[in-house]
């Protein structure tokens, strides 16, 4: 967990959420722009999970390790779930569904960073 990675992921998540809102406003389903955005977000999230996993193996111990791991797993799955569910939605609300997942990712990332930085002396 590093602040630059969280920042990059947050920017991507917000971009995906805005794209989702846009396609809802334009009465469209989700398209390639959404898929590319979500894929980029997922890539950063996986990189970050690997970085965090390596640090955990190296002895970094957040105080609430259990919560941290649960959040870390959830945040990696969210974009995948959001895309799958949005693609099967034929109405214009598909983009908003993806947007909900992206906003949840952004919020959870900062909570993860908080958890990560509180360590036992």
């Amino acid at each position, binding site marked *: 967990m590093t602040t630059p990675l969280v920042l990059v992921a947050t920017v991507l998540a917000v971009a995906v959420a805005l794209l989702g809102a846009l*396609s809802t406003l334009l009465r469209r389903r989700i*398209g390639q722009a959404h898929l590319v955005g979500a894929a980029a977000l997922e890539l950063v999230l996986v990189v970050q999970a690997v970085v965090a996993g390596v640090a955990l193996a190296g002895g970094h111990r957040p105080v609430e390790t259990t*919560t941290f791991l649960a959040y870390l797993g*959830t945040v990696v799955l969210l974009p995948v779930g959001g895309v799958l569910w949005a693609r099967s*939605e*034929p109405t214009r*609300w598909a983009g908003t569904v993806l947007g909900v997942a992206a906003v949840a990712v952004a919020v959870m990332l900062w909570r993860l960073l908080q958890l990560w930085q509180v360590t036992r002396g």
Partner: protein
Amino acid sequence: MADPDAGARPADDRALGRPAVESSSTDGGTARGPGRVLVAIYGVFAVAAGARAAVQLALQFDEAPLAYLLSALAAVVYLVATVGLACGGRGGRRTATVACAVELVGVLTVGTLSLADPAAFPDSTVWSGYGSGYGFIPLVLPVLGLLWLRHQADVAAEVAAEQAGTAQKSPPPPESPPPKSPPSAE
């Protein structure tokens, strides 16, 4: 309706998606259209509140039993509402309505109590301060849910009434078994 101009403006369509199907009021289901957004938000809250409550109950129950039990209750309510909305149908709607009502009462009660007597809530719950720690989404969500469920119940009643009128000619049964007599709720 099927997509009439697949390929008319391919580049634009691919980037931002094909034109959407209009969410007509008859293709109902509580997990379609805007309902799917509700299910997504409820699902996120069910997972978030559930994970948090599980950890709190397992590791630090003694610190604030009341708050943690309320967190667990909230998580269960969110889960029930998610499942009810996702399943739809008459039973799903009824389940989700009860869950949303419990949720609304819970967020109002816990919100008021947490402001009136902060000492009783040393550790915050999802519903503390009317959900202020979660952008007041816990306060808005049950209201939206109940409005959506009422709309869906109206749609289902209309569809049932139409079927009762045309039942002799075309028999496809979409959601609920076609009632022999007109449904009791108008």
